[in-house]
C-alpha cells in the first residue's frame, strides 16, 4: 500500500469537510476520485501532500501514512517532494519552459547546469512534451498552449522524482484532444508512479482509473474497482451520481 488512511476527519473552522475516511491506495495504480462539488474530493487530495495546512483554520484527526510513515511526523518539504501535485488550471510559474521544469530540482540542491539539463530533458520526455518544446526551452512558459502548459506542469512535478502524483481535475480547462494526451500520459506513468486523479468528469475516471472512489458530503461512499463502480455499484447514491441523476 502506498497510502493508508484511517478515520481521517478534516475541519475548516466549523465546517466538517471530511468525515471518517478510511481507505488504502495501492502503488502503481490510478485511483479515480469522483463526486459532486463540495463533496471533499479536493480536500482529500490536499490532505495527502499536507497542502490543506496553508488554510489558517484547518484541523485534522486520524491517521494518514505514506509507505507506513505518519505524514504529520514527516518533514513537510520531504513529503511534498515525494507526493507531487498537478493543479486544476495550468499554472506555469512566470519563468521560461526550462526554468519551470528545473525549479524543483534547483530547490533540492541540483546546482550544475548539465545535471539540470538532463533532468529537464528526462521529465519533458516523460510528460511527452519534449518534441514540442525542445527548440524553445527559453521562451516564457505562458506562450505554450493550455494543453502544453498542463503537460509542462506534469513535467515540473516529474522532475522532482516523486513517488505519488496527485491530479486535481487536471483537464478541467482543456479541449478533448489535450485531455486525451494528458490521459494517455497518465496511463503510461502508472508503471513508475502511483496516481490519484480527482475529476469532475466521471467518464474520465472510467477511462483511466483502476479503482474509483465516490465521495459525497465529505464521506467516502464507495471504493471499488472502476469496472464494478461503473457497472454494478453497491450503493444507490453512487449509481445515481454516475447515472447523472444528481450532482
Amino acid at each position, binding site marked *: 500500500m502506498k497510502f493508508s488512511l484511517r478515520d481521517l476527519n478534516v475541519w475548516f473552522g466549523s465546517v466538517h469537510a471530511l468525515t471518517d475516511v478510511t481507505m488504502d491506495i495501492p502503488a502503481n495504480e490510478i485511483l479515480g476520485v469522483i463526486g459532486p462539488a463540495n463533496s471533499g474530493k479536493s480536500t482529500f487530495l490536499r490532505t495527502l501532500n499536507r497542502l490543506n495546512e496553508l488554510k489558517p483554520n484547518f484541523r485534522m484527526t486520524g491517521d494518514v501514512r505514506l509507505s507506513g510513515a505518519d505524514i504529520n511526523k514527516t518533514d513537510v518539504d520531504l513529503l*511534498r517532494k515525494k507526493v507531487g501535485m498537478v*493543479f486544476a488550471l495550468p*499554472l506555469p*510559474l*512566470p519563468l521560461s519552459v526550462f526554468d519551470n521544469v528545473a*525549479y524543483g530540482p534547483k*530547490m533540492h540542491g541540483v546546482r550544475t547546469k548539465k545535471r539540470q539539463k538532463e533532468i529537464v530533458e528526462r521529465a519533458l520526455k516523460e510528460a511527452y512534451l519534449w518534441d514540442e518544446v525542445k527548440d524553445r526551452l527559453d521562451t516564457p512558459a505562458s506562450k505554450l498552449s493550455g494543453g502544453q502548459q498542463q503537460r509542462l506542469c506534469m513535467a515540473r*512535478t516529474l522532475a522532482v522524482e516523486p513517488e505519488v502524483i496527485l491530479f486535481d481535475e487536471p483537464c478541467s480547462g482543456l479541449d478533448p484532444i489535450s485531455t486525451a494526451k494528458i490521459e494517455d500520459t497518465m496511463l503510461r506513468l502508472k508503471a513508475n508512479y502511483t496516481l490519484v486523479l480527482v475529476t469532475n468528469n466521471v467518464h474520465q475516471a472510467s477511462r483511466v482509473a483502476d479503482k474509483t472512489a465516490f465521495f459525497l458530503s465529505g464521506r467516502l461512499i464507495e471504493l471499488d474497482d472502476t469496472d464494478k463502480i461503473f457497472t454494478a455499484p453497491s450503493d444507490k447514491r453512487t449509481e445515481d451520481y454516475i447515472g447523472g441523476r444528481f450532482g
Partner: protein
Amino acid sequence: MRNPRRTEKIAFFFLFLATALIVLPVGLIVVSIVRKGLPAISWQFLTDIPREGMRGGGILPAIVGTLYLVLGAIVFALPIGLFAAIYLSEYAKDNVLTRIIKLAIVNLAGVPSVVYGLFGLALFVVFFRFGASILSGSLTLGIMVLPIIITASREALESVPQAFREVSLSLGASKWQTIRHVVLPNGISGILTGTILGLGRAAGETAPILFTVAAFYHPQLPRSIFDQAMALPYHLYVISTQVPNVGDKMRYGTALVLLGLVLIMNSVALVVRFRFRKRHRW
C-alpha cells in the same frame, strides 16, 4: 429619456476633467520652477559653497547633504521595511493583533512629519547622543518612510497569486525558498514603487531634519556621518524666509535642483523596476 451613450460621454468628460485637474497644477508648478530656476543653474551653482551670506555662490553642500540623508534613510528603511512586509504578508497569522498592526502601520504613514522630527530629536539626538548629525537625520527620515515602504511592499507581496505559492510548496520547496524564488521576484516592482515614494518623501521633507541634522549655514562637505549637514529643502526654507534679499533666481534654482534630484532618483528606481519586469514575464 435615458440615453446610455450620452451618459457615457458625460461620465467620460468628467473623468477626463478630474485627471486634467490633477495634471494641470503639477504641470504649472514644474513649468514655473523650471522657467524661473533654469537661469540660476550653472557649473558654479552646482559645485560651489554658498557665499555672500547665501545670496550667491552655489549649493553643493546642500546637494551632498540631501544625497547622504536619502541614501542613509533608504539603507536603513528598505531592509527593515522589506523584512517586516515579508513577515506580515507571509508568516503572521491573520488574527486581530496582526490586523491592528497593519492598520497602525498604515496610519503611521499619515503622521505629520514634524512629529517624526521631534521623535528623532528625542531618541537619536538626545537619548542615543548621536547629536545633530547625518546619522540622526537619516534614521529619522528612515523611520518616517518605513510605513510607506512596509505598506507598499506588503500589498505587492499579497498580490502575488496564492496559486504560485502552492505550486512551489507542492514541489517540495521550503517556505523560505518559495518566498525567495517565487514571491519576491513577482512582487519586486510593487516594492520598488513603495521605495520610490519613500525616496521622494525623504528627499523633500524639511521638518524631520530640522532638529536632527540640518545646519543653517555649514559651507563645507560633511566628513563623517556624525557631522551636521545642509540639506536642500531646509536650505530652500532658509533662503526663502530667514535671509533677506535673496534673489528669486537662487530660490527657484534650489527648488529646481531638488526637483531634479528626486526625478533622477525616481528614474533610477524605474529603470531597475523595468529590468526586473523584463526578466519576469507572465
